[in-house]
């Protein structure tokens, strides 16, 4: 079984097997023969005309798949949706990335795509919030905005000059701090209307990047006050002295509360469990998993153990079957 390397006891094995079988039986009726592998021919109705989409090719007048995945049909269009593959960007996607290089007027970000993405200095809001031309001074101060290894949230702008361009023209985009970055398979995150979530009861912010990078961090109010923001920026980098002259007491005040930190870890572990099991990652399921861990009174570290994994699988099977009945 892929990804699952946990010592399961005999009963746990049986329970997990049962839950997974139940999941399989729930989905098998919907699309039983839609899965294809490389070079499988896809049956299409040639009389209506066919548009070959991604993941397909023509061979001797037949449409064949070029990746392993699921066949999707939209009117005349036939394409194969690859499951395990790198992120395929679409304009307007919200992504989370890590800065790997600060270059001339741009940052290069790793977003799990074929190439590094580019975030131009001109396509993001300056910290002072004023719209103006970017000067040479701004360029020199780029490291004060994002440094190497910073985690950044941005939006896909499109392809220009053989590169993927990002933009961050709003308060909600920008540097992410005080939290955890999780990397999951991109196919587990579905494109939705809302990718920024705030779990009020835990005081946790959750960003489900379309590229499979998930951010779990302390909740930050979107604020316009630049002074506050700057103070915030300096104290998040406590480890770097000299840059900030904040007193110890002030730092303590600005520290994330222990309770919130625990919830961040709990949410992060919930996502880890879901991704190892290969379940899709949505706000609803994450919330349920966190609640489950709280109701069974598990410690955060125990959430990655085999017992919780089995529990989550069972709960998911239950959830899907009840969803099905409702319809």
């Amino acid at each position, binding site marked *: 079984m*892929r990804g699952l390397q946990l010592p399961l006891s005999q009963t746990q094995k049986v329970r997990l097997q049962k839950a997974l079988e139940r999941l399989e039986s729930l989905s098998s009726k919907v699309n039983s023969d839609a899965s294809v592998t490389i070079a499988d021919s896809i049956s299409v109705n040639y009389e209506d005309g066919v548009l070959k989409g991604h993941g397909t090719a023509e061979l001797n007048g037949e449409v064949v798949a070029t990746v392993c995945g699921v066949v999707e049909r939209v009117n005349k269009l036939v394409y194969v949706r690859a499951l395990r593959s*790198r992120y395929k960007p679409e304009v307007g996607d919200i992504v989370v990335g890590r800065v790997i290089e600060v270059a001339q007027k741009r940052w290069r970000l790793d977003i799990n795509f*074929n190439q590094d993405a580019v975030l131009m200095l001109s396509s993001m809001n300056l910290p002072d919030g004023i719209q103006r031309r970017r000067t040479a001074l701004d360029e020199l101060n780029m490291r004060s905005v994002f440094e190497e290894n910073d985690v950044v949230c941005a939006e896909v702008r499109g392809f220009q000059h053989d590169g993927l361009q990002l933009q961050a023209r709003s308060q909600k985009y920008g540097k992410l701090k005080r939290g955890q970055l999780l990397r999951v398979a991109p196919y587990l995150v579905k494109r939705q209307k809302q990718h920024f979530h705030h779990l009020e009861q835990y005081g946790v912010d959750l960003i489900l990047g379309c590229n499979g990078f998930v951010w779990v961090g302390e909740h930050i109010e979107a604020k316009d006050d630049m002074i506050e923001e700057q103070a915030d920026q300096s104290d998040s980098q406590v480890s770097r002295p000299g840059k900030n002259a904040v007193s110890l007491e002030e730092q303590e005040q600005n520290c994330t509360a222990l309770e919130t930190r625990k919830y961040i870890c709990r949410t992060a572990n919930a996502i880890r469990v879901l991704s190892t099991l290969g379940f899709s990652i949505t706000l609803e399921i994450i919330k349920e998993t966190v609640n489950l861990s709280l109701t069974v009174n598990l410690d955060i570290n125990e959430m990655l153990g085999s017992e919780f994994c089995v529990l989550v699988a069972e709960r998911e099977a239950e959830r899907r079957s009840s969803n099905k009945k409702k319809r």
Partner: protein
Amino acid sequence: MEYVSPEGLRLDGRRPMEMRQIRAEIGAVAKADGSAVFEMGNTKVIAAVYGPREVQNKSQLIGDQALVRCEYSMANFSTGDRRRKQKGDRRSTEISLVIRQTMEACIMTHLMPRSQIDIYVQVLQADGGTRCACINAATLALADAGIPMRDLVTSCSAGYLNSTPLLDLNYVEDSAGGPDVTVGILPKLDKVTLFQMDSKLPIDILDNVMQLAIEGCKAVANYIREILLENTKELEYRRGV
């Protein structure tokens, strides 16, 4: 030495036209984009694919297609006598090149411009036919990474000893010094992408031996296809709607 007994059995008890048992497993390396373990009898190979990703050496960047790289290595513990092999000896460089060329022929590189794909294969247990096992493992790993390919490449070897064509040689038969034919095919397109031979073989017998190897390749292809389909189905039902 007698490689085929009068009863028609080989040293390890197989018939001349029989393959060793094959086994494959997808997803052996957690951090890789795609990975697989492939076993042919006692030969065991692990493959990991990284990419398509940003080109590391900018001078190697190709503007309209992906760069494919391959590294083959043998683990120190893979052979009977444990010996330290330095990286980049002639044999492994040659096999790396062979695997790279074979895989490059089937990957649709034009779909992933300005990127690079790294294939790492390592032999964990060597018992003859490592070249074939490496190609099969690499195919599986590439398919797992979701990299578009024209067709699956599969490979199998065949030999000719004691005037009998033998399928899928093991180490003892391989080191007998007889002719050893390694064939790689694209089963759906019905094309040969790899053909290597050691020693000499009369032309009329070569045809037989090659046919035998191709049959072996097809058997491997069927098995690989089954494994991939099973894996895809599992991923899909687990994800749910």
